[in-house]
């Protein structure tokens, strides 16, 4: 039997998963403009609301919160896409039968959804640099690196949370509520839009179990919004990586691939 390699010797068989998912992500937003606009506008709607009710000095913190929340919400999108493709389109069987591994599939969907979120993140970064600069919290190269690193950890972690949960969903009706409920509650428990110290003590204790808390504290520390010593910064980074590692192990155990 002729294999694909023998029939099409010049077609590369590796390194095509991410570009393919990039095209999927781009096609999705280019065909549905609201899909591109909604994730950009929603954080701004919340930011606008927060800017009205909170002191102006908290605005840089809230912008950082909006960026981390946006990145965390990619998990909800990954959940939606992978569940929709599996349940509605029965596409996952095709992926399982192909040489694509489940981790590549995870990164592929995460990557395609990152495309839709990039405009929102770019605008929020510019806004952070502008507002932070005016309020004495400049976006230095160090702060920018910390921000990008934290966003990257959030992206990997919550994308895997999304795909892990999606593989257990049985009907299409469950997709939207489960995604919304999971990621909104996780986002609200962490001090993304308010300082950790503003929360009631019990809530603060609960928040310390969540990786997003340490991502927020790290970026807030790097920007000088919430003062943190170098030792504290290292501790936050270690706790972020540790929480993320634990989260990844749990979600990858939850994640069903071929046997689903």
């Amino acid at each position, binding site marked *: 039997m002729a294999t694909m390699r023998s029939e099409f010797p010049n077609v590369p068989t590796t390194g095509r998963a991410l570009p393919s998912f990039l095209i999927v992500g781009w096609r999705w937003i280019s065909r549905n403009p609201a*899909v591109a*606009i909604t994730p950009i506008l929603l954080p701004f709607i919340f930011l606008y609301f927060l800017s009205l*009710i*909170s002191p102006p000095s*908290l605005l840089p913190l809230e912008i950082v919160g909006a960026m981390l929340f946006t990145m965390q919400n990619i998990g909800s999108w990954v959940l939606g896409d992978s569940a929709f493709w599996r349940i509605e389109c029965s596409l996952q069987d095709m992926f399982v039968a192909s040489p694509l591994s489940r981790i590549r599939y995870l990164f592929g969907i995460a990557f395609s959804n990152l495309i839709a979120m990039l405009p929102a993140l770019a605008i929020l970064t510019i806004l952070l640099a502008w507002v932070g600069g005016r309020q004495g919290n400049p976006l230095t190269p160090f702060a920018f690196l910390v921000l990008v690193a934290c966003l990257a950890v959030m992206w990997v972690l919550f994308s895997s949370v999304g795909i892990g949960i999606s593989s257990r969903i049985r009907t299409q*009706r469950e997709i939207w509520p489960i995604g919304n*409920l999971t990621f909104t509650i996780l986002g609200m428990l962490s001090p993304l839009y308010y300082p950790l110290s*503003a929360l009631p003590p019990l809530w603060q204790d609960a928040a310390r179990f969540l990786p997003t808390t340490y991502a927020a504290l790290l970026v807030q520390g790097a920007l000088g919004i919430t003062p943190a010593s170098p030792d504290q910064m290292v501790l936050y980074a270690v706790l972020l990586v540790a929480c993320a590692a634990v989260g990844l192990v749990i979600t990858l155990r939850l994640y069903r691939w071929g046997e689903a």
Partner: protein
Amino acid sequence: MRTSEPTTPTRAFRGLGAFLWTEALVQAHESLAMATSMLVQAVLLVFVWILAPSLIGVALVGAILYSTFTMGQRVLNEAAYLRIDHKANDLYLAGPMAPEAYFLGMAGGTLLVYLAPVIVLGILAAVVLNLTLAQGLLIFALAATVWLFSASVGYVFSTFFRDNRAIWAYSSLFFNVFGVLPPVFYPYKLFPAALHPVALLMPPSAAAGLVQAALGVTYLSPAELALAVGGLIVETTTVFLFAIYWARRTVRGS
């Protein structure tokens, strides 16, 4: 082979009670969706509670109005889901049920099931704001008007979708732009004065403005009061009548 004569609805709203109850039973099984229905309100109330506790009363009233407003989103999702995924609307509407009964039954069934958390919000608002009976009745009447408006909009919008996957993006945008940006969860004085007429023409913020004025939180001039009341009545009546017309027309079209 003889077939029975097609049954055409002879009476307006025929089958409303039966479909309302059917829809209420269907919705009552959607515990996850019910929990999700209060997410945005809960988030905004948490924001206010932590960052501006003095505004919690206004925010609670806003949450009541926003909750009835987002019931339109439930109607949109349900109508689109039944039509696109289950193709059940053809089945329902091939029977003797009137098209407007299908729309209103769906909206009413959704309202019945999603009302419980709104009542909890109402009790909280009554305790926090020490509401009088008149203020309570005003909130009830305005919430009912906002519900009728959004249910009608939700049903009409649902008929434009061809793909379930695109719904959430458009509906989130619509319901958040009209429900969160204008002064629904916060007092009018925090909203740019030049844009007050715009906010008073949007049903959720018009209702919120009227409640805030009744509570003494916001001052609305007689012209602004007339704009809010007139806008709310005209918009709701127009959209509701259009939804009934549209429900009948889309059935004939199919």
